[in-house]
């Protein structure tokens, strides 16, 4: 079976800074894969490199068996869509939800826009009432739903999720995570999800990769992490930290 995403010894260099130092990754179709690490570990850079948003110095990326060149073509973006961390920054402030959702349809020349917009809004739990609002009239959770609708409207097979809930309140986070799981099940999507929160990753993903300063520390199944069968000290530290504050007497 061809992998949905195959990354081979990828190097990303910003000026002289090596953000990714030869990272390899393999995600199967229909799988949900997590990337964890602290800030500066390169997890977001890896995601952005796949989307074509980071300067790749060497190494290869293949999506659904097709090796990607330096430029992404339109067909790529029909397969792969991304949801960004900050729903306050990723929606155009002067476009209505309707206009935002029309943009990808216009680019890809879809004729049945009307129907697709309605279906996409229904799917993310926003009724037609939200269609002609501006993003500043929506709450953070509603905005993230719009961003998810925009990603889904082209019916991609792969979603890249960059900390999709870290800007949201805990209760809203639960709603958005449930929504993501639901659409993944219904559409048999492949997820590549970045988060700094181990609990979210073990909840959402089957496998995960722990990253530190541009390198992969270890690859784990979510179940291994839950049972704390980890081999590297770095991962152990992250696990301990996510248990909360412990007072030393």
């Amino acid at each position: 079976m061809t992998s949905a995403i195959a990354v081979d010894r990828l190097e990303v260099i910003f000026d002289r800074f090596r953000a990714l130092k030869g990272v390899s990754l393999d995600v199967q179709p229909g799988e949900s894969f997590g990337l964890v690490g602290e800030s500066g570990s390169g997890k977001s850079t890896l995601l952005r490199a796949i989307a074509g948003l980071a300067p790749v110095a060497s190494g290869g990326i293949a999506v659904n068996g097709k090796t990607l060149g330096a430029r992404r073509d339109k067909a790529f973006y029909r397969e792969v869509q991304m949801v960004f961390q900050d729903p306050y920054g990723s929606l155009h402030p002067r476009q209505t939800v309707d206009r935002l959702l029309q943009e990808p349809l216009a680019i890809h020349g879809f004729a049945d826009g009307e129907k697709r917009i309605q279906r996409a809004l229904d799917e993310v739990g926003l009724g037609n009432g939200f269609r002609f609002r501006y993003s500043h009239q929506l709450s953070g959770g509603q905005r993230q739903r719009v961003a998810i609708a925009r990603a889904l409207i082209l019916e991609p097979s792969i979603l890249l999720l960059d900390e999709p809930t870290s800007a949201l309140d805990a209760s809203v986070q639960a709603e958005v995570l449930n929504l993501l799981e639901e659409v993944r099940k219904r559409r048999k999507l492949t997820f590549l999800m970045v988060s700094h929160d181990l609990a979210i990753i073990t909840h959402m993903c089957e496998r995960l990769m722990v990253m530190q300063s541009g390198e992969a520390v270890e690859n784990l199944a979510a179940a291994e992490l839950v049972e704390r069968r980890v081999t590297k000290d770095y991962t152990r530290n992250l696990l301990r930290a996510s248990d909360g504050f412990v007072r030393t007497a």
Partner: protein
Amino acid sequence: MSALLDVDDLRVTFPTRTGLIEAVRGVSFSLGRERLGIVGESGSGKSQTGRAIMGLTPPQARISANKLAFDGIDLLSVSPRERRKLRGKRIAMILQDPKYSLDPVISIGRQIVETLRTHEKVGKAEARDRALAMLEAVQIRDPSRVFNLHPHEVSGGMGQRAMIAMMLIAGPEMMIADEPTSALDVTVQLDVLGILDRLVSERGMGLIFISHDLRLVSSFCDRVIVMYAGKVVEQLKASELGHAQHPYTRGLLNCMPKIGADRHPLPVLDRKPEWAA
């Protein structure tokens, strides 16, 4: 034990084009020399409560309270001059993101010295020595190097330590920490909390810890106040969080993914209008 801070029926109201908005609607609590957590989601009024105590409410807002007293001083009637003397000297505040709350064009050392010399008559050399000692107390390894750095040259964790040093140097009796670790990585978060914990208990300070993270607060504080829509919905001991009564507190605890708990879909919060009533 006499209370360090007494808050009774605190209200903060903002005038807007569409009428008055009450951000804080009748909050009451008292603080001794303990660690008190205030938890709530965005818009619950937790930060405005902290800011009203510190005297940082925007000028267009109106504050009213039956009582808002720090160590017997009525904070509502005190003159701006007196208030300035309290702020930084006896009441200190740590803000969320050191990137935005430190002055970007002044070195870290000078900012700490400035706080000290505003409140105490000390010479330059002594102020410098005390600032260096304070940087060492917040576990900065090379204080004399960090002293001369500007905020953009240090990491988030280091910046937050510098801010704690700045807040503690005048020896305050009460500290308000508004999301002090939300901008930091989890492991750094614990270091910073450890430092805060040690200094607060060594100096016998009262601490108000404002956060959206119920689990973090309950592992750090002695007592927790849960706020919803400008009101206190529940007050309880941190150790008894598992036995929380209010459905909002329970819902908030429940909806977070936990390592090892296999719950699909996650329980979501079903907000009841009567919670805000």
